[in-house]
């Protein structure tokens, strides 16, 4: 099984044995309550220098309130899993929280471009699906996963992927390195206090993120009883033992949508996109992050109940988004 080609970039160390030990030693195997505030969850489970994955993005059922809390706490030197992203990476890089990004797709904007030129931010190249496949390998406890895409691209050269001779067919096949983030933040429709969680509708890689990550913070629109999960176990997307913290975060994806719960706020979306395209989140962060101490205060003072009522009203489709 010869190695035919190798990407030349750094990648988060592949260590399934180390991850297993971390699962054994640090994951809460027992059913214990993990309800806590945004502040406590981020303080306890997001650490400077972490590899951070967020599922979905700032506009689409993403953990927007947790991203704002990470900024508020001025975390440093994060390595971001930049898949399927409009503004989340730009916010975190501009806020000084992150200095490395694995890229599938992100809204780049002039600020990150400048940071790259000035060597304040390093970029590694993948595609959205290659990144979620890396997470899938990480979620299965294996060191790599074969894939039939990404070979032949220039991105490959700037990645941690390899092309080997497949020992079964003799043909070239690409291998992606498993990804086990230090921490993942995931926004869901419903969770119980232990961390059992439900995502309704499509998604990116919430189940993989939860299984693949050393630490997991789930923020949830609703906290429901464990009995509710036991009544319909097929709807459980994430099992409690993968989760370290459960944060009750109604409208946690604002300005984004949570399918079946509320629509996006187009003005809020455009405001963030504008800041990204200008490469200047100064005013945005002042207004949406630093002006308040908590997500609750943010909803009350910055967003306002009228807006919240409006985005809930505009979400008229409910089919498939309840159990």
């Amino acid at each position, binding site marked *: 099984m010869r190695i035919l*080609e190798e990407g030349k970039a750094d990648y988060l160390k592949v260590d399934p044995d180390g991850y297993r030990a971390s699962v054994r030693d640090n994951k809460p195997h027992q059913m214990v309550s993990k309800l806590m505030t945004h502040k406590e969850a981020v303080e306890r489970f997001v650490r400077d220098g972490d590899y951070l994955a967020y599922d*979905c993005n700032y*506009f*689409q*059922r993403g953990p927007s309130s947790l991203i704002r809390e990470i900024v508020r706490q001025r975390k440093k030197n994060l390595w971001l899993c*930049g*898949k*399927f992203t*409009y503004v989340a990476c730009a916010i975190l890089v501009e806020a000084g929280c992150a200095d490395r990004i694995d*890229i*599938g*797709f*992100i809204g*780049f904007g002039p600020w*990150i*471009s400048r940071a*790259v*030129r000035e060597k304040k931010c390093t*970029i590694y*190249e*993948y*595609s*959205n*699906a*290659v990144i*979620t*496949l890396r997470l*899938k390998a990480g979620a299965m406890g294996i060191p790599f996963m074969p*894939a*039939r*895409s*990404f*070979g*032949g*691209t*220039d*991105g*490959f050269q*700037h990645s941690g992927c390899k*092309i080997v001779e497949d020992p079964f067919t003799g043909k*070239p*096949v*690409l291998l992606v390195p498993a990804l086990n983030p230090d921490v993942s933040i995931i926004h869901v429709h419903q969770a119980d206090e232990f961390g059992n969680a439900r995502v309704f*509708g*499509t*998604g*990116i*890689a919430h189940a993989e993120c939860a299984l693949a990550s050393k630490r997991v913070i789930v923020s949830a629109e609703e906290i429901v009883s464990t009995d509710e999960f036991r009544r319909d176990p097929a709807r459980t997307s994430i099992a409690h033992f993968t989760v370290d913290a459960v944060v009750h975060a109604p409208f946690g994806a604002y300005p984004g*949508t949570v*399918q*079946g719960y509320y*629509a*996006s706020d*187009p003005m809020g*979306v*455009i405001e963030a996109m504008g800041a990204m395209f200008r490469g200047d989140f100064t005013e945005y962060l002042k207004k949406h992050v630093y002006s308040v101490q908590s997500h609750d205060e943010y909803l009350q003072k910055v967003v306002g109940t009228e807006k919240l009522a409006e985005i809930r009203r505009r*979400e008229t*489709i409910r*089919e498939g*988004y309840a159990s």
Partner: protein
Amino acid sequence: MSTPATDFNEREFVICQISRLVDDKYIYWVGGGGEPMNSVLLAKRMSAPNLQYLTEDGCVGPEARVPFDPLMTMISSPANYRALQWGTMNYAADLAQLGYVDYGILATLQVDRYGNVNSTVVGKYEGGEGRRFGGPGGADSIAALAWRTILVTDQQKRKFVDRVDFISSPGFLDGPGARERHGLPPGTGPWRVYTPWAMFGYGADCQLMIQAIAPFVTLEQVLEEMSFKPAIAPKLEILEVPTEEELMILRTQIDVAGQVTDRGRWIEFKDGKYSFAAP
């Protein structure tokens, strides 16, 4: 209703072209929003009511409720409405990897003579000197795994280059056999490139060939807006303009807010021919 339209813009023109290729018989992976999504939404209302497409979030065969809020082309209840199945990104990629995706449709920043796609950087990659863009997103998977890829781009010299500055998503790389040598599945690859002015296919040498042009431009105009000289089909076709019905549906049901179609020059039918309207 199938009367040829007399007033439309470049975006509407290209959306209608692609829309007409779309058929109930096949499965499509539609990249993001923009022209690709609008093309299939139009096709579903015109000729392919049972159209099956998937999006990067693993949504299979939705009956999307349009219009969408800005950017909400995936992981939103209107975009995913009444789907046959909801999955996630790895599921979409698995289906494509298995050969279920007959056609991939995607918009791009820059394309070269081999159909290679750049959505990463214009200019030099190293040192971050070039102008940086967002990366391949889902386009790499589509370009690698769909049996046939349909690209949409603008007809501009800087977007049609001899060699892209960075291959974000694979076309034919550097010619016959190259995809397979890098582990991509055989029998796949670029099939058509559409611009508002022309339609390109590929020759046996895996290089772009102009096959048809819009009735409101000349071949010379098209060639002027390319950085290299492509092969030209022996018989150059003229693309048919949008019909009134297509435009009505597109304007009143799909891109109501003009998010996609409110860019591009306008074309009018005047003095017996189609030409650019005065700005």
